[in-house]
């Protein structure tokens, strides 16, 4: 049976605003936003404390410690945003609240966009929370601006990529468990190459794979800016895949996946 696509005369922008407003309230005033930030800050506290008080932990110089902190913040911040996005539609479906939303004259596009923005707020909050830690670790080596800038640029692209992916999967998955499983598996699969030894990343094939994977590409960019003190544009070519990933997946999340948003879920499961 065909599900009804929802052309609606209501303004998609207004719908997005209304949905995003309510989702933000639910997430930050009544939901898990603040507790997640507490857990996130505890993680960064452990890394910062060990890095600041006992350097034999990683024998790295200061800039490398700052780089490590940025990489962890980007990874965990994007993960948090993705988890919330992965629950956005499939969670409503499981809780029985999706039907009421689909019956309202709100465009599905606006619904998806509003939930995307709300989930992304977790990344933005993570970035803000990371700031003081970076300031502390980077003082004395002049790396604060580099670190914050790299995190804001590359980290935001990675976060948008994963958040949009979470919305897409959530729109299609029949169950919340499936949605979260697929989202987390995808994130882990893309992060795994960062653990490969340096030798495996050599050669044209290794570099190509690094550039194509938005996670490894962003990691490379951040490292060059923070550790090697490259300028913002010197390694900008490495941001191509994160940028393309963010734009393409956002388009799919807001423009394509809503057509398949139904009570039963469709493609997955």
């Amino acid at each position, binding site marked *: 049976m065909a599900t009804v696509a929802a052309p609606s005369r*209501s303004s998609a922008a207004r719908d997005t605003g209304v949905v995003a407003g309510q989702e933000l*309230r*639910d997430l930050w005033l009544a939901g898990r936003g603040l507790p997640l930030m507490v857990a996130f800050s505890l993680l960064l506290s452990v890394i910062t404390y060990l890095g600041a008080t006992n350097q034999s932990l990683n024998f790295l110089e200061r800039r490398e410690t700052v780089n490590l902190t940025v990489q962890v913040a980007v990874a965990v911040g994007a993960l948090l945003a993705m988890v919330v996005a992965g629950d956005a539609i499939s969670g409503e479906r499981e809780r*029985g*609240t999706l039907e*009421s939303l*689909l019956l309202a004259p709100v465009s599905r596009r606006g619904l998806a966009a509003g939930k995307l923005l709300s989930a992304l707020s977790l990344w933005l909050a993570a970035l803000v929370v990371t700031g003081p830690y970076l300031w502390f670790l980077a003082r004395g080596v002049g790396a604060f601006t580099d670190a914050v800038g790299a995190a804001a640029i590359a980290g935001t692209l990675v976060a948008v990529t994963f958040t949009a992916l979470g919305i897409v999967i959530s729109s299609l998955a029949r169950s919340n468990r499936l949605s979260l499983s697929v989202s987390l598996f995808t994130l882990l699969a893309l992060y795994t190459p960062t653990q490969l030894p340096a030798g495996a990343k050599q050669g044209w094939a290794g570099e190509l794979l690094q550039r194509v994977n938005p996670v490894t590409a962003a990691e490379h960019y951040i490292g060059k800016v923070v550790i090697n003190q490259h300028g913002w544009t010197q390694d900008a070519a490495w941001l191509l895949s994160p940028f393309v990933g963010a734009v393409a997946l956002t388009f799919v999340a807001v423009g394509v996946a809503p057509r398949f948003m139904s009570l039963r879920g469709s493609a997955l499961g």
Partner: protein
Amino acid sequence: MAAEPRPTPADELAPPPDPSGARSGGVTLEARGLRATYGSMVALEDVSLTARAGEVLGLLGPNGAGKTTAIRVLTTLVRPSAGTFTVAGIPHTCPAEIRRRVGVLPESAGYPESQTATEFLRYFARLYGRSRAAAAAAAEELLADVGLAGRASSPIAHFSRGMRQRLGIARALICEPSVVFLDEPTLGLDPAGQAHVLRMVERIARERAVTVVLSTHLLAEVEDVCSRVAILNRGRVVADGTVAAVTRRAAAPRRGRFRVPVDLRGRALTVLARADGTDDAKPTEGRPDWITVMLDEAPAIATVPRVRIDAAARALAEAGIPVLAFELDGARLSDAFLAMTAEG
């Protein structure tokens, strides 16, 4: 969970605007030949329905008959594979407009546990295009209307089943709809809760001149509240009309009891046994002055039961036997329902 507060009397409400002319009693819901499928399974086949403003249309049927599918089609959640329908004068080709004019309480409606009742209604009012101030005012008014004013700031997580159903009805009314679809609104409620919801349904239809489509298993509810009823079985409408018409159409056997003076019972038995339209008159067990008669089974003719009763009473009167009291038994809507949905 907190105890459910006593419902408060409804305030008098000014009738809402009526752009579709519904208040004049015009047709607000019309479906012709609807067909819907889930893969290879046919959920609805050639379903036609009509309802007018102010009517309460009961949608009856056993599990899997297609009631929920019919509601989802008419509320544009599901696209029919054939057929047409209009809701509040809007054709099915304009689903977004239809959604602006209908209110729906789904059967398995969930609610965001962390939101309060007010937040919940305000959100939906905003989704329906109201400003913040208008949404707040609408939420307050509707909560009072459904008897939840005292729990406006409570999280929905603390609401009982009955309170959630009332909240759902309030949400269905948020857009001042022309047609309200209620899918099993009394499911899981105690008798008092059921009665309250049904009174609310009646009031909604009457005061707001709204068409209510009520899907329910409880036949007593339908007899109580509905002006029209449609019985679905295996995706098809097997009966459609007023409750009385549908009941008569089932031609279930009817039984009457006459009370006559004790000393005249013997003669009354003889008279009734010979009267037109009666069959098998016999003394009522345990009641010495009553006689039970079975009225003739006959093909469905609208006035047959009345004719049979009149004929029996006239026969007694002509025989000089006074009728002290009369009871009519059997042939309820439940009999019609079972008769129409029993066969495979």
